[in-house]
């Protein structure tokens, strides 16, 4: 039986990778992809905890997280398309109209 802490460490590392991608990439679409990595890290944590706690609660919650991730991808990519249409760019450091 694999210790629970291995799963949680892997999940923490994957979450940190997602945060790193979100904070460093310029492309808006790559930032959304990093959010998917973070959501997957949380999903892995939930499923592992649900397995080790003999409970179904975490897996049900994972199901809802997948739903929200699909909705987030649809809306976020719609925003990316709208941004590209109006500004001809998807780089976040070029969208600085509100910067003082």
């Amino acid at each position, binding site marked *: 039986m*694999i210790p629970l*802490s*291995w*799963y*949680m460490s*892997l999940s*923490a*590392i994957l*979450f*940190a*990778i997602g*945060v*790193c*991608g*979100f*904070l*460093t*990439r*310029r*492309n808006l*679409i*790559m930032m959304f*992809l*990093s959010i*998917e*990595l973070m959501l*997957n890290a949380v*999903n*892995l944590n939930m*499923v*592992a905890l649900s*397995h*080790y*706690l*003999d*409970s*179904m609660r975490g897996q*049900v919650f*994972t*199901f*809802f997280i*997948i*739903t*929200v*991730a*699909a*909705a*987030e*991808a*649809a*809306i976020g*990519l*719609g925003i*990316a*398309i*709208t941004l*590209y249409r109006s500004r001809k760019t*998807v*780089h976040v*450091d070029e969208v600085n109209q509100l910067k003082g």
Partner: protein
Amino acid sequence: MFTYLFFLYCAVMIVGTGLLAITMRNPVHAVLMVLVLFFHMAGLYLILGAEFLAAVQIIVYAGAILVLYLFVLFLVSLRDEVKMDRFVTSAWLGRIISVGLGVSLIAMLPTFVLGQKGHWPMAEVIKATHTKALGMEMYTSYILPFEIAGLILLIAVIGGLVLAKHDTPTTIEKS
């Protein structure tokens, strides 16, 4: 023994492809790396005894969401993307923050205490099959969150349509 090897293989692949995905120059290659990552995540779900979630992971994440990402990548221009700088100017700050976050998350792990055990031990799940167990839990205790998830999907459909729609008056005149 085999489970340990499989877990280590999946863990190495997940961390490696994750790192490649956030550093690769071409966004299409990054999306394909994330595809490999999702397949290995489904493998981890399988050794955790969650077959239905592994199938949903492959169908929804790898099959639908990543294809959506690829479509949008093709809609925006990629030509200049491979030549430009792919990181923001303050990228080192983000790297420091994320490494600190990862180290502190792992350092907090030994203080974690497992909570109360639930009503679904592995033997019960295997006896009822995983899909049935998940469905029994979802359609009884979690029926209201399930309805709300449906509402969120409806809002996402409407929002996606509204955001991606051309609303310039010239297109109406042409047609």
